[in-house]
């Protein structure tokens, strides 16, 4: 575990009222691999885990959804405001595997996915970026993916833009065309993909969330119940085999 690096908000992209991307400039370089996370401390508030949607040298982009006090305070920051970062922590996506990549982001889970998509594109891998949201206007990185020439599909639940339906239903139709699946998003989505990957025998890497307090494998708060796996050390990205071998059980929602 490292000490904090100070960061300043350099620019802000407003996706929706509750969802913004902050581009930060750090006092020192701190590069995070796609899927890894950092601990973001806002003094007077708490420290929370975030998987950057981009990271390079002393620039870092955090895409944050306001769900509680700290995340709301973060998206309410102004350009020039200071926050504190420690990390990187955890294991990110393994991008070294050969094959066709299917990338799936749901909600703010699209953050590490777009970052992985950029990195895979640099590596000249064949990829499809799929983003699932409730409705038009909630999309985070679909346009960005398009703009940089990434094959991308938007799936909206209400059909207000792109393909209509649940992102998992869309994926079910195309999954057999791909070798590797990377996903981050709400747990029900991940669990469906988990079962789908097991069924189709596809190599999948899924980024799960739990309450991360220490980030360094000491406090146990981020355990995936019953598995003995820690999100902060063993994850946040897990392969389907790792989950299965640790007797992961999907909840009712899946």
């Amino acid at each position, binding site marked *: *575990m*490292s*000490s*904090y690096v*100070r960061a300043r908000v350099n620019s802000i992209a407003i996706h929706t009222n509750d969802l913004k991307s902050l581009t930060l400039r750090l*006092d020192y370089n701190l590069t995070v691999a796609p899927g890894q996370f950092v*601990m973001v*401390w806002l*003094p007077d508030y*708490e*420290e*929370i885990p975030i998987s950057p949607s981009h990271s390079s040298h002393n620039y870092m982009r955090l895409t944050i959804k306001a769900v509680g006090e700290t995340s709301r305070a973060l998206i309410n920051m102004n350009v020039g405001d*200071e926050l*504190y970062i*420690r990390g990187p922590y955890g294991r990110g996506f393994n991008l070294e595997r050969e094959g066709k990549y299917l990338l799936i982001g749901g909600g703010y889970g699209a953050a590490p996915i777009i970052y992985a998509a950029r990195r895979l594109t640099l590596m000249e891998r064949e990829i499809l970026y799929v983003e699932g949201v409730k409705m038009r206007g909630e999309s985070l990185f679909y346009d960005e993916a398009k703009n940089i020439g990434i094959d991308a599909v938007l799936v909206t639940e209400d059909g207000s833009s792109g393909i209509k339906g649940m992102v998992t239903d869309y994926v079910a139709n195309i999954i057999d065309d791909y070798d590797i699946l990377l996903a981050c998003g709400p747990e029900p989505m991940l669990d469906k993909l988990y079962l789908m990957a097991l069924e189709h025998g596809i190599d999948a890497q899924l980024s799960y969330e739990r309450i991360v*307090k*220490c*980030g*360094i*494998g*000491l*406090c*146990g*708060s981020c*355990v995936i*119940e*019953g*598995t*003995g796996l*820690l999100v902060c*050390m063993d994850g946040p990205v897990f392969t389907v085999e790792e989950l299965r071998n640790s007797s992961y059980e999907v909840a009712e929602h899946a």
Partner: protein
Amino acid sequence: MPRLKINVAGLELSNPTVLASGILGDEASLLRRAAYSGFGAVTTKSFTIEPRKGYKTPIVAKVKAGLINAVGLTNPGYIAIKDIVKNAKVPGVPIVVSLAGSSVDEFHRMAVYADEAGADAVELNLSCPHVKKMGMEIGHDPIYVAKIVGDIKGSITKPLFIKIGLSDNYMDVVGRALDKGADGVTAINTVRGIAIDVYAKRPILSNIYGGLSGPAIHPIATRIIYEIYAEYRASIIGTGGVEDWRDAVEFILAGASAIGIGTSITIRGLGIAKEVVEGIKRYMDNEGFKKLEDMIGYVHKT
């Protein structure tokens, strides 16, 4: 092959490493994982009567010589002990249940419950340095500690350990607790400290104060183990800054029968238990120690 099996105050361990209390918390699958990874015993996080959410983050701060934490005794309340012990049990790896009460009565209730729930030993946390009215504030009062221990001792069947921290009067605390029938001593807990971020210009921990652990406290722990062994020849689980077999051997030579490991798990992972055990074995082979008992407190013999 040197023998690493050891009986610590009635607790039979296949090797002397013990997962320290609070590390990895209370969840059964994590305790099981620790047990499978090679620890001789695992200790639960300290339970309290009521569930506790713990402190707001940040709950840990890195310093050069270790870590400062103020988790805040997060736990689901002592009623959960039963399920946890049941689900965490791994054959051959005893579970020590740690308890943090704020009165004689609380300690008593929890100890009896843990005993019945199948704990292999009960450890009284008398030394948490960052929670008010629990731990340290009680542990600094020898008379009160004696009362707690005396009150519990007849009511449980399993070995009873007291966990102490650094204070001016720990020798008195330990002496009285042993008199009242405590079977062993776990030493030491973390030492109160503060870390400040010079850029944020404030204490890092939401609780301001936290407990210093890791290499920083190893020489302090060595001293306390040494003193307790010299004076009382007690069974001691030596804890504090053990990162490798050498740190462990120092404790054993000073008088520890077993070795608690906490903070260094964040750097070395759970594999540290095996590494330490292998290192101790190699050392014993080289130095001609046939069994762990021969090493315990060796520095007092020369």
